[in-house]
């Protein structure tokens, strides 16, 4: 019973905010999704032929977090201009550092893209997976599609979607 399936790593390990990491591995006919806290691993298998849809949702708090960073930066800059005179150089430097730190974080966040919640829907259920932030998630999805194309005609283009629009079906995702 101990026959191991040959897997290869599919894309980079993704880390969640709470330190859990996730990894997709790929076999001949399925993905193995692993979530781990370092000492325990949970597995989910997604067979290529079963995957019906992948959904990515932009997190709503994203704009709010960026706004807070920018607001904080503006506030510190304002204090710096109003309260610090030319003689007090050390205080000015500290305030500049405090003001620039959130700017650096905000720019980094903008570069890596907003956090997205990713969901894989199969005929048997809906599972949350970590595909990374938006840019990486899009890249990872693109990689997944290359495997899915072999198993089914994926993804559906607009013409296919309109053909499906003719059939009576309710699809929840």
């Amino acid at each position, binding site marked *: 019973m101990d026959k191991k399936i040959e897997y290869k790593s599919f894309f980079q390990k993704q880390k969640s905010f709470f330190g859990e990491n996730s990894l997709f591995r790929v076999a001949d006919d399925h993905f193995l999704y692993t979530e781990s806290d370092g000492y325990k691993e949970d597995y989910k298998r997604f067979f290529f032929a079963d995957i019906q849809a992948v*959904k*990515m949702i932009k997190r709503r708090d994203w704009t709010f977090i960026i706004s807070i960073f920018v607001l904080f930066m503006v506030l510190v800059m304002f204090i710096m201009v109003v309260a610090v005179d030319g003689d007090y150089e050390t205080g000015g430097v500290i305030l500049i550092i405090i003001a620039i730190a959130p700017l650096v974080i905000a720019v980094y966040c903008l570069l890596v893209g907003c956090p997205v919640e990713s969901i894989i829907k199969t005929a*048997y259920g809906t599972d949350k997976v970590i595909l990374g932030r938006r840019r990486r998630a899009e890249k990872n999805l693109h990689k997944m599609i290359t495997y899915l194309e072999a198993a089914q005609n994926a993804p559906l283009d607009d013409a296919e979607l309109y053909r499906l629009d003719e059939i009576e079906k309710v699809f*929840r995702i």
Partner: protein
Amino acid sequence: MLDVICEKCSGRLTVEGLNTFSSCPGCRLKQKVVLFSSIEKEPEKGAAPEAVLDDHAACINHPEKSAAALCDGCGAYICNLCDIEIEKQHLCPRCFNNTADEISSVSKKTELHDSRALAIAFVSILIGPLSLLTAPIAIGWALFHWNKINTPYKRGKWRFVVTLMIATGLFFGWSVWLIYRIWI
């Protein structure tokens, strides 16, 4: 008509906005939905079992159905519906449930004993002479769980090897130090 419904708010997503990020009309969350052709597929329910005949054995779970296989776990007759074929074995649902965690290709979770053993070994480095107590635990943990890593993928045993090297080194090193301090 194909109705794609947002599970969060039950809002109806338009076909035009599916393959790109667009707002759900209900919850206003920006989302991208990529659909695949298996959307039309329904879950397979398994082959329908045949009705039992006079000279045929019946399924243990469905007495009116003809047996198609013998369970490799308990030896019971099972029909097509009950037959779970996995890793070249035929199992009845009960045996499958009892042994699922031992079958690497279906296991859903695994304790990573090698990572734990390695963590104990690294902690042992930090606690100095107290590792005379923790190093044997790390060695024991590594040896006891040597063959008990049941990941579906191939996982090397290097963590166990490193654990044994560190823990053995620490144990003998601190033992020599202790003997030297006591007797010399």
